[in-house]
């Protein structure tokens, strides 16, 4: 019905009709898809959220004498330099070696785009052609030859929302999750999001010109982990032309650094089907809420949910109303769609058709692993335990005889009711305390299970600053003990 060339001709002539994806919903509702397709030439979309899979390639130019950088840091944030002498890729989530989560690759990129200078420090092994072994200098975006943003995975079509069934606050890449289903967080902007408005990827593909970080950029392929309808895009653009307003460094507390990236994609309304596609509304976009309380790859699905429900600010979980936080900015996403609309209307932005389409079907495979090691394979079993009625002296004797430091306390059924450590006994002795094990034992015990992966058991010990966990079965009976020594032997291998 319409071609991109015809639409570009209209842009040139100044009589193109551009609307945002939000405006298009109303137009299609009013006129129907067929009429809307005649009226509207382009629909603009936008999204603005944390996109960890982002970064930039730099070419710093050659020093005199020249150096083949083996390692390079920008403001103490390491960039990858396993490519040519003075080329490097700086990823946004890389942390500063001195400031940790306070500052990372995203901050370096934002600082550069704001026109600030950053410190470049590099080391090398030295060769006949590149004799220099070290350099420290200051650079700005103007000084480097190229600064090309290349983001392997951006603009998620939709994303799984998050909640937390556990009894502690979790700090995740989905933000802070309160205990006992205390809140829900979600990413993406549903009906305004680029890929949701072209779900068959007819007009968004390799070579599509887009708005990236305030400048013109391009789609260079499907993104990593692309798995429709959870589609993703790989994009590139010239960092030197970008605006700091649309690239904002952020820190998810307890998780790490990331970059809020602004992306807008124009969708040419070639025919009735495209008009229909761009009329998609939040209630038609489904995702799931998953439970981050389970620290495994396959987190349990708590329930299905639509973006309309998420956007309402409240969802129901187990009969209770739970408050919802977006992690993407609707305000900024709308602003990007509006800005792109104006650029097209002013004749500053022309559309392209993809030179290659991105896959409409793809599965996201898990990692191939040799095995997942579980607690069962390293625990000491049968466990050496003690009764709460036993004397402190008896407990001390058992610890010494068995050369162990932890003694789970069990009742007559073998159920765990506490734990005593050599430290508890030393403290009791120091205070001249005599009595029973139950007088000095810790009653709130952190435990593990036989099937729990050892990495999770290790993290429990680290978080609670303890050195062993009783292993319990489903009836809370002690079946073994695993110590940090058992684990470190295995994890170090």
């Amino acid at each position: 019905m319409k071609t991109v060339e015809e639409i570009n001709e209209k842009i040139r002539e100044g009589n193109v009709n551009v609307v945002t994806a939000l405006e298009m919903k109303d137009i299609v509702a009013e006129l129907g898809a067929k009429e809307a397709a005649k009226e509207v030439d382009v629909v603009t979309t936008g999204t603005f959220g944390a996109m960890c899979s982002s970064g930039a390639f730099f070419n710093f130019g050659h020093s005199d004498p020249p150096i083949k950088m083996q390692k390079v840091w920008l403001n103490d944030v390491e960039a990858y330099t396993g490519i040519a002498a003075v080329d490097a890729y700086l990823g946004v989530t890389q942390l500063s070696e001195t400031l940790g989560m306070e500052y990372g690759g995203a901050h370096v990129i934002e600082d550069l785009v704001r026109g600030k200078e950053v410190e470049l420090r590099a080391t090398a092994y030295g060769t006949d052609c590149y004799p220099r072994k070290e350099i420290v200098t200051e650079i700005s975006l103007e000084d480097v030859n190229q600064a090309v943003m290349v983001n392997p995975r951006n603009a998620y079509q939709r994303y799984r929302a998050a909640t937390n069934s556990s009894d502690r606050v979790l700090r995740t890449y989905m933000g802070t999750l309160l205990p006992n289903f205390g809140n829900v967080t979600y990413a993406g902007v549903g009906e305004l999001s680029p890929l949701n408005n072209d779900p068959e990827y007819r007009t968004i593909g390799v070579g599509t010109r887009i708005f990236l970080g305030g400048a013109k950029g391009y789609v260079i392929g499907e993104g990593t982990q692309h798995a429709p309808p959870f589609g993703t895009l790989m994009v590139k653009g010239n960092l030197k032309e970008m605006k700091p307003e649309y690239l904002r460094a952020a820190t998810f507390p307890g998780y790490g650094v990331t970059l809020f990236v602004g992306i807008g994609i124009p969708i040419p309304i070639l025919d009735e089907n495209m008009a229909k596609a761009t009329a998609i509304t939040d209630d038609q976009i489904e995702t799931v809420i998953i439970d981050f309380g389970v620290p495994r790859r396959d987190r349990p699905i708590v329930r299905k949910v639509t973006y309309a429900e998420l956007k309402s600010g409240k969802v129901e979980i187990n009969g209770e109303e739970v408050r919802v936080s977006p992690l993407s900015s609707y305000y900024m996403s709308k602003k990007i769609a509006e800005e792109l609309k104006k650029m097209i209307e002013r004749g500053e932005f022309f559309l392209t058709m993809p030179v290659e389409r991105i896959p409409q079907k793809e599965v996201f495979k898990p990692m191939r692993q040799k095995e997942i090691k579980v607690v069962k394979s390293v625990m000491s079993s049968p466990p050496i335990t003690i009764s709460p009625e036993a004397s402190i002296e008896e407990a001390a004797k058992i610890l010494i005889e068995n050369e162990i430091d932890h003694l789970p306390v069990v009742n007559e059924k073998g159920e765990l009711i506490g734990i005593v450590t050599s430290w508890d006994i030393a403290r009791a002795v120091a205070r001249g305390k005599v009595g029973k094990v139950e007088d000095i034992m810790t009653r709130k015990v952190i435990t593990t299970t036989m099937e729990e992966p050892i990495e999770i058991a290790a993290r429990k010990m680290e978080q609670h600053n303890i050195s062993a966990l009783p292993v319990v079965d489903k009836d809370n009976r002690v079946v073994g003990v695993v110590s940090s020594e058992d684990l470190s032997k295995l994890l170090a291998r």
Partner: protein
Amino acid sequence: MLLKLKYDSRSVRAPVISKVAIEENALINIIEAKVEPRYGEIVVEVDDEIAERVAEKFKKYGVEVRKLTKSIEKTEKCVDCGACISVCPTGVFERGEDDRIVVNEVKCIRCGFCVGVCPLKALRLPE
């Protein structure tokens, strides 16, 4: 209204909050408390209408009182994402008509939890 009470070594030993609550017939909600043997700092919430009267009574018992009128502040770093909305215990943050994040200052109990949650470090709790 929120009042910040500072106790010195003498006043910290007396049951001042109970005394004031009974004598002024006031409902006093403790928001935050740090009490040590020789010093104490407590933030309480009382109805606006009786705040003046309650504050005077605390002063009479030797407690230093400061009205906390300032609530959480959103700085220009905010990108209006809304990560703060669901973590606030009293619902201070809301998405406004224009999709910007609105701060309902009167609801703020100055717990400060949101400050440590904001990815852009855009929230500030002025003294």
